[in-house]
């Protein structure tokens, strides 16, 4: 027999962002709990609102299976000693079955007597087991927990009631001084409390009390009502998924409404309006059919349509106050030239132990100029970069960014444009913060990409220099994300940068130009290079390269992300070819011999020492590959070369007694090995 089991935790309003994941946590923990206790069920359905986390276990078995079985144990001579006492083996056997040695009896099997027990246990009732749900509440985790009253117990918000119904029976789960019953609460303002007769009554009973307990249904209601409004007014909206999720979890009974504001505010940059609406008020911004932002907004009320006019006018008033504030900042900021703000950056700290923003900008210019030269960027791009580097942090001291910090960069771009800076410079100011999250969008322009890379490199160099190196668990300044951003931008722009060579050069250029402490040459720049390599690894993992390929390409002496990615691509592409295994085997054989011979001599090959044609052929083949740039071509070259290498091994004794010949052969092989290293340390590859 089965029944449905309803369990609801009623709380004060939980933060919107924890609701969905917490109810999932509740379901997962319950699923595990029921499985561990051998209680069968069909499925678990979840309900959640800001005030409740609920699960409905469908078709839950009323009891565990009964046990009735005979279990065979050790032979009698092992179970009892000479005096007929129970041995440890016998005791262990009985205990393992949840019995005592007294329950043991003997029976003959094929001429030997064995110990047996007859295990007979009635399955525990679900109604007893379910009392353990209190432990699930206690085990739940949240980003922030709180104590209330005089308790030590912590939860996301104070718990007010519990419902625990197995079919129509109350399972009186207890937490603190709350005992679960059959009474749940309706909407805080529109509803009343309801007594549930049955677990299955839950959803409908709450609907009568203005609570849509099913979060997906609530979301659908919001989307439908929104679409109706949008259609009616011939508007467009961009349905921000995160915002939709948030507003769904801010209400128990949604009613969508639209409000408007004075058109004069539309003269401000649209990001300012969107931030005011979206981030501060949780409104959806509205567009016309040509994607222009217009003076309306859409929001969701926690309630029905009654007195909606009050709600609309109240919300309009709040938004206008915010826009007024923004307008004030916008007007104030524009009264000053950019230099006014730039000058103040001397007093803005980048980090206590490193120095000011103004100082950072000077370093970034040096680094960027070095990179621009390395990548042979056009003069205009360099000019624009130089200008951007003089300005790019200025908006940090504007009033607008002081108030809306999320607009950093964006306001810089707008103010730079208004001050007559060119488009490249202006956009670079915005783009230097990109990517803002590890997988976020990248800068699109050359100058923006350059500024972003230089800014992030400077951050990493100076933090390492000041000894603030991230640990595996602690990276408060997001240096990993910065480094990952660098890798992504380099790959996106196809900018080659061998870090092992470039880092010491950059650090050298900065010497004497900044009060910041710089990384120690030789040790720390190697540390930084390896820090960045770990991010290349992250990138390759993220892009689903095989783990052995990742190990191989990262173990080579190659330090340029572009080359490393190219090598990984080639290896991944050919990984399943018939030729792949023989090629890799031939090449790793070479490495093994070189390693064994500890060959460190000159890699110069003397043709006059050749004794047969196989040596000529390998020599010619290697010569051919020396100038191959494209790694795909190099791999093809190896495929051609593989029989030649094998022939070489078949024909020649590498470790010849004559030292000159031996060294000449090793030199020949080390030339091949050096070429192969461009693809990676192939010995790391797992081949079939």
């Amino acid at each position, binding site marked *: 027999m089965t029944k449905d089991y309803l369990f609801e935790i009623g709380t004060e309003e939980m933060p919107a962002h924890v609701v969905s994941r917490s109810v999932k946590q509740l379901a997962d923990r319950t699923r595990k709990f029921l499985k561990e206790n051998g209680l069968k069920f069909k499925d678990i359905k979840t309900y959640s609102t800001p005030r409740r986390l609920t699960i409905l276990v469908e078709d839950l078995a009323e009891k565990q299976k009964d046990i009735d079985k005979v279990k065979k144990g050790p032979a009698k001579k092992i179970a009892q000693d000479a005096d007929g006492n129970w041995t440890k083996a016998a005791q262990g056997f009985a205990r393992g079955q949840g019995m005592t040695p007294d329950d043991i009896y003997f029976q003959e099997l094929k001429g030997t007597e064995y110990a047996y027990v007859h295990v007979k246990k009635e399955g525990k009732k679900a109604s007893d087991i379910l009392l353990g749900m209190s432990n699930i509440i206690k085990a739940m985790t949240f980003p922030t927990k709180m104590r209330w*009253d005089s308790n030590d117990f912590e939860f996301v*918000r104070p718990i007010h009631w519990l419902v625990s119904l197995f079919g129509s029976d109350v399972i009186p789960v207890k937490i603190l001084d709350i005992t679960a019953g059959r009474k749940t609460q309706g909407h805080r303002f529109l509803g009343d409390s309801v007594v549930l007769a049955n677990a299955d009554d839950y959803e409908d009973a709450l609907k009568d009390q203005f609570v849509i307990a099913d979060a997906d249904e609530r979301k659908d209601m919001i989307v439908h009502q929104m679409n109706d409004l949008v259609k009616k007014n011939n508007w467009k909206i961009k349905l921000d998924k995160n915002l939709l999720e948030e507003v769904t979890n*801010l209400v128990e009974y949604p009613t969508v409404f639209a409000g408007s504001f004075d058109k004069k505010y539309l003269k401000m940059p649209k990001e300012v309006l969107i931030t005011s609406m979206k981030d501060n008020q949780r409104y959806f911004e509205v567009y016309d059919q040509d994607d222009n932002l217009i003076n309306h907004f859409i929001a969701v009320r926690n*309630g029905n349509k009654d007195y909606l006019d009050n*709600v609309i006018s109240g919300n309009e008033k709040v938004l206008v106050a915010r826009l007024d504030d923004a307008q004030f900042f916008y007007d104030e900021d524009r009264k000053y030239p950019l230099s006014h703000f730039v000058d103040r950056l001397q007093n803005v700290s980048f980090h206590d132990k490193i120095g000011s923003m103004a100082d950072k900008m000077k370093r970034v210019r040096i680094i960027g100029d070095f990179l621009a030269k390395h990548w042979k960027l056009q003069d205009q791009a360099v000019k624009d970069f130089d200008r951007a580097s003089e300005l790019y942090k200025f908006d940090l001291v504007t009033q607008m960014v002081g108030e809306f910090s999320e607009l950093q960069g964006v306001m810089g771009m707008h103010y730079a444009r208004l001050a007559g800076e060119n488009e490249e410079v202006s956009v670079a100011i915005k783009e230097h913060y990109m990517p803002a999250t590890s997988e976020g969008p990248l800068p699109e322009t050359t100058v923006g990409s350059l500024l972003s890379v230089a800014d992030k490199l400077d951050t990493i160099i100076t933090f390492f220099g000041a000894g603030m190196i991230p640990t595996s668990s602690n990276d408060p300044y997001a240096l990993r994300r910065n480094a990952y951003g660098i890798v992504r931008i380099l790959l996106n722009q196809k900018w080659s940068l061998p870090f092992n060579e470039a880092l010491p050069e950059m650090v050298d250029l900065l010497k004497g130009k900044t009060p910041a402490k710089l990384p120690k040459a030789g040790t720390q720049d190697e540390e930084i290079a390896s820090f960045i390599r770990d991010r290349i690894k992250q990138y390759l993992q993220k892009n689903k390269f095989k783990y052995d390929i990742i190990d191989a390409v990262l173990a080579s002496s190659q330090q340029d992300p572009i080359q490393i990615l190219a090598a990984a691509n080639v290896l991944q592409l050919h990984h399943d070819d018939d030729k792949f295994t023989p090629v890799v085997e031939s090449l790793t054989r070479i490495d093994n011999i070189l390693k064994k011979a500890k060959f460190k001599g000159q890699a110069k090959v003397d043709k006059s020492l050749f004794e047969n044609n196989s040596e000529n052929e390998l020599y010619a083949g290697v010569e051919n590959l020396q100038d191959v740039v494209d790694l795909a071509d190099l791999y093809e070259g190896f495929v051609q070369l593989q029989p030649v290498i094998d022939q070489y091994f078949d024909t020649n004794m590498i470790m010849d007694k004559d030292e000159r010949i031996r060294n000449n052969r090793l030199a020949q092989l080390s030339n091949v090995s050096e070429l192969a290293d461009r693809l990676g340390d192939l010995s790391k590859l797992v081949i079939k």
Partner: protein
Amino acid sequence: MAEKKLNIQDMIMKLEKFWSSKGCMIMPSYDVEKGAGTMSPYTFLRAVGPEPWAACYVEPSRRPADGRYGKNPNRLYQHHQFQVVIKPAPEDIQQYYLDSLRVLGIEPLEHDIRFVEDNWENPSMGCAGVGWEVWLDGMEVSQFTYFQVVGELDVKPTMSEITYGIERLASYIQDVNSVFDLVWGNGVLYRDIFKEPEYEHSKYAFEESNQDNLLKLFDLYEATAKRLLSQNLVHPAYDYILKCSHTFNLLDARGAVSVTERAGYLSRIRDLAHQVAVSFVEEREKRGFPLLKNAKNKKAGLEND
């Protein structure tokens, strides 16, 4: 909206009457400058230790950096908070709060009232709490917090704090766009009382304050607070900590504090706040936590009835 619009002093009196009926003492505003009602000794000091406490009061809150010379319709050098603190927090505290809005003529069914997560932190006083900002038709009108830590001490039992932004709420109730148009009481407008002080305080905070003197004052106040703490003179020490805090806010408004120095000042204030919280509990303990006994006697008395 209420038929006859409530003026500010009526609003305050209604809130006082309501919360008094829920067991709160009506305390006078505390006479040392402070940035928020939380910093009144009626909240900060009473939050720590095991004794029960229930109080409400109006607190003028000075935030020099928010001064706008009386020109911005919603930003003020000094605004007013109506503060309600109850320890231990009653189980129905949210319901009480909603009832208090009804007293002000705000019927929840006619509006959209939400409890939106906003965990409060005041690092300079070593305080943290969990709670919400309360939205009334999209406007934040109150802050609602369960104190968890005050002066770096665990708050146990937990204290609930409700802070009404008086000007915000009044702007809504009186339906005005500028706080200066609010009616304070008996026909006198907010502007008639506060317009000039707003201008003058802004002028002082942004232009006329003497940084060197403020720095000296900070050091002097800090030294005094430390000396008083060493003599277990908790309350005068706390007054000087408040003065440190306000002096720091003045320096900050002037832009005289760099980001680096900022952290230093905040940690100096936090250390004092921690010490004074510890001393307060020690001193109360020496006296046998008088309010704890009161509460027991009261309870015993009730049971005897």
